[in-house]
């Protein structure tokens, strides 16, 4: 196949309509007879439902259907099925759904909601992880023992929804060595809201005994299966299609409001649209979780990390959700980047009576990288080593072991650090600022992965010389479906990307797919599409070889033709061959499937993990210069540089766009975007006035260098490029601010008040007293040998 033709900078086919306002996202859809829905939500964090009477609402003008907990018998979850659609008897967070109404207009639906008679008896709530882990704390799920377990292996107990551990080597022995310094650091981060511009939205209808759900999601198959489970119907009764998605970032990686609309459509017999209000999005989005981290390392004077242990607490909110899975990631993020002699890590998903958290671009990687990189700077300072030299000495290289004992291939991070040196020197920043602000700089490294998993693709060859690519992939804005996939298929078949028609996701048309996220579109869907296209290629070449009278091996597909290699203009057009093939054999198509092969870890190292090792690691090196105003605490980012491991860049310009966007989202996380929870358990930032996204004046152009050539099992050597740009932004800004101020940065975001607080020494060191002093005392289930755990 012609490798070169797969690399190109070409424009997106969806741009024109998006620029003209013609694209119809889910929130813009309108069906004849469509009703509008609204959801009644609890306004206490914890309570018992004494009465929920919808009879008055049912008589309100325009009301067509009302559904409540009785209509949705199932429970869903990742790992454990703990999450019902509506609060049943018990309310576990402020904002938990109680009932949903469909009416002729939205105003009528909202008016009817207000007439539902609810009485709730408040119960004690646990709003922070410290409260939740306190002895004798009220349990968010008193019946946790009875829940159906969907994935075996996690340790659980009371408010600890899930616990995953890693133990490799003898950490106690490492810490006991006489030649080491012990460095301990604690960190805390808040939540981050995705603020996808299109809120979660759905239009559902019910026809011929099946649900049709049009929704703004990254995971059509999850929506299909989870909706069915919640509703108690066979999954085959649910069809999910996905219009263009107006931003996702992980927010739409889980079931959301789809079942409400589905139930209401069935109950009313009419199509139903439900769109979250911005306030609902602000208060109940599946945030990037708040987390608390303590990390300790034993490091020799010459900079060898002989032992590392950490405790990571992740707030899952009222239901386990994605955090259950994400406990797995600590091993590869906090346990990543560096060679470790021995290590033990525990990450615990903790229930609280707050809105459930979820997945957000690079998930736990963002704050674990923040913690790890700040800790790394603290180690370097302690042993008197240059932080960059320390990193260079310790970054993972070829043959090194990861935390779970997987063997890393290739030297990637070290040459990426070299690459960053050249970028940085070319920029030559000034170290003192004329205006009295404090200058700081930092370089950090980060490890993330591509979430491989099952994907399917079909390529249909059309007699007109175009092909149709059928997958369950969704265009969420990153361009993968508009650029990478057509490029891969077009490159294989010698077509122009525009000749590849991309079918929008439809679970009735395409096979199973894990979803678009985790940087996996280009890799998993790309690999499935590649093999489907290769099958088409093989079939076409066979037919062509008869038509051209040449052996298939001697033929090439290029520029819409099948030709004898080295003889441009020979042979036939692909359309001719396809037409002949169709007449002779029937229409030509190919199917492809992909799933990650699975990389081995060291036996016995991990417990409670969903994956033991990462199939495709992705590395990033970030660097920035900041100026800190000592009187106001404002941090200005002066320069930002990224060297990103992309495996192979199919469309460098598109990747640059993803990096600029991802870094800016990271700047939001690092500097502006703050979520706080009031004493009643409600998120305080209910709109754009208080939740501050970076604006055009707050950003800088990111200097970018794509690092190609690292090993990858992805098609054509690709890795996911869209997710990882956010990974070490929080870390880099934090390290640079610490460098500028000489203060111990332990929390994000670094809003002006938080920075000023640091500068003025207004607040003492962060103390996490709910993390036990001895690592082993933090575990609900012991892991490792007696010697390792000293119990």
């Amino acid at each position, binding site marked *: 196949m012609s490798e070169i033709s797969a690399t190109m900078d070409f424009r997106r086919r969806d741009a024109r309509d998006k620029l003209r306002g013609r694209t119809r996202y889910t929130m813009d859809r309108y069906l004849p007879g469509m009703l509008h829905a609204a959801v009644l939500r609890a306004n206490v964090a914890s309570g018992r439902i004494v009465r929920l009477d919808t009879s008055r609402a049912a008589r309100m003008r325009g009301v067509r259907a009302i559904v409540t907990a009785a209509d949705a018998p199932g429970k869903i979850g990742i790992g454990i099925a703990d999450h019902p659609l509506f609060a049943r008897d018990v309310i576990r967070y402020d904002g938990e759904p109680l009932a949903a109404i469909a009416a002729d207009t939205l105003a009528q639906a909202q008016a009817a909601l207000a007439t539902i008679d609810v009485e709730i008896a408040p119960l004690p709530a646990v709003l922070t992880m410290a409260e939740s882990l306190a002895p004798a704390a009220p349990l968010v799920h008193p019946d946790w023992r009875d829940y159906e377990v969907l994935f075996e292996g996690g340790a659980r107990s009371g408010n600890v929804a899930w616990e995953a551990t890693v133990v490799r080597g003898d950490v106690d022995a490492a810490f006991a060595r006489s030649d080491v310094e012990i460095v301990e650091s604690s960190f805390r981060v808040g939540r981050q809201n995705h603020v996808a511009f299109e809120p979660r939205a759905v239009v559902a209808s019910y026809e011929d005994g099946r649900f049709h759900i049009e929704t703004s999601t990254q995971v059509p198959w999850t929506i299909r299966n989870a909706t069915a489970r919640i509703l108690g119907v066979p999954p085959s009764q649910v069809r999910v299609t996905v219009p263009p998605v107006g931003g996702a970032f992980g927010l739409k990686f889980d079931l959301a409001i789809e079942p409400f609309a589905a139930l209401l459509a069935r109950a009313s017999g009419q199509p139903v649209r439900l769109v979250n209000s911005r306030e609902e999005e602000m208060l109940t989005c599946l945030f990037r979780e708040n987390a608390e981290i303590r990390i300790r390392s034993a490091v020799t004077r010459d900079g060898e990390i002989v032992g590392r242990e950490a405790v990571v607490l992740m707030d899952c909110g009222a239901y386990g959700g994605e955090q259950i899975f994400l406990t797995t990631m600590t091993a590869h993020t906090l346990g990543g980047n560096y060679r470790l002699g021995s290590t033990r890590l525990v990450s615990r998903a903790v229930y609280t009576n707050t809105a459930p958290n979820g997945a957000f671009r690079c998930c736990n990687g963002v704050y674990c990288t923040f913690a790890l990189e700040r800790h790394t700077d603290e180690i370097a300072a302690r042993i008197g080593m240059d932080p960059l030299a320390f990193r260079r000495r310790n970054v993972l290289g070829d043959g090194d072991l990861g935390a779970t004992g997987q063997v890393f291939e290739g030297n990637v991070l070290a040459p990426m650090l070299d690459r960053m040196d050249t970028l940085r020197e070319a920029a030559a920043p000034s170290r003192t600022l004329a205006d009295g602000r404090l200058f700081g700089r930092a370089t950090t490294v980060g490890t993330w992965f591509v979430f491989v998993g099952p994907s399917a693709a079909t390529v249909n060859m059309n007699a007109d010389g175009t092909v149709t690519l059928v997958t369950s992939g969704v265009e969420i804005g990153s361009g993968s479906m508009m650029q990478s996939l057509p490029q891969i298929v077009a490159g294989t078949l010698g077509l122009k990307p525009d000749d590849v028609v991309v079918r929008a996701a439809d679970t009735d048309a395409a096979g199973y797919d894990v979803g678009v996220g985790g940087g996996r579109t280009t890799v998993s869907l790309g690999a499935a599409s590649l093999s489907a296209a290769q099958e088409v290629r093989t079939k076409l070449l066979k037919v062509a070889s008869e038509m051209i009278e040449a052996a298939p091996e001697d033929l090439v597909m290029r520029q819409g033709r099948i030709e004898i290699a080295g003889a441009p203009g020979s042979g036939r057009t692909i359309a001719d061959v396809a037409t002949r093939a169709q007449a002779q054999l029937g229409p030509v198509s190919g199917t492809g499937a992909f799933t990650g092969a699975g990389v081995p870890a060291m036996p016995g190292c991990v417990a409670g993990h969903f994956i033991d090792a990462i199939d495709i690691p992705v590395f990033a090196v970030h660097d920035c210069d900041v100026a800190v105003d000592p009187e106001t605490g404002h941090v200005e980012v002066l320069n930002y540089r990224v060297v990103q491991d992309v495996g192979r860049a199919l469309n460098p310009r*598109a990747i640059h766009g993803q990096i600029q966007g991802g870094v800016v989202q990271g700047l939001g996380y690092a500097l502006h975007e703050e979520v706080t929870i009031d004493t009643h358990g409600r998120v305080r930032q209910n709109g754009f006035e208080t939740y501050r996204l970076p604006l*055009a004046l707050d950003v800088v152009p990111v200097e970018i260098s794509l690092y190609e050539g690292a090993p990858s099992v992805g098609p054509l050597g690709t890795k996911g490029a869209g997710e990882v740009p956010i990974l070490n932004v929080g870390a880099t800004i934090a390290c640079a601010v610490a460098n500028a101020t000489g203060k111990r940065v332990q929390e994000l975001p670094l809003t002006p008040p938080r920075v000023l607080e640091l500068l003025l020494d207004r607040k003492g060191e962060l103390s996490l007293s709910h993390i036990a002093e001895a690592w082993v005392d933090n575990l609900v289930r012991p892991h490792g040998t007696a010697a390792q755990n000293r119990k």
Partner: protein
Amino acid sequence: MALSLTVNGDRRASAADPVTPLVDILREEFHLTGTKPVCREGFCGACMVLVDDRPTPSCLMPAALAEGSDIRTVEGLGTGDALTAIQVALETCDAVQCGMCFPGMVVTLTHLLATSPEATRDDIRAALSGNICRCTGYERIVDATLSALAVK
């Protein structure tokens, strides 16, 4: 009493409550869904329309106040199938990602192109301080605007 609005040159009637935000009438009654209500509080600019040539957040404009004005939504900007100068520039620069902010960006920048031919990078960023984009990190939007200004 029915409201009478002039949208993209067409006169249209609406029976909505007079303080209904213009954005809701445009979308729900006239099906001009290019205009996006994202924040409904004047910060994001995704609902921007031109009211008598002035960029106006349609979430804050009561429909009754828009009577008698020339309302132009993103759908009414180009002629026929042709893109406007700023749309061409944004497409050429591969600026678009999810696209939700772009109708509002295009409206604001259409006005900027018409009124500030000398705009610098910083002027453009300042002009966009009421247009938020969650996806792109803005740089390409600024680049595209500069290139559209250069063409003019």
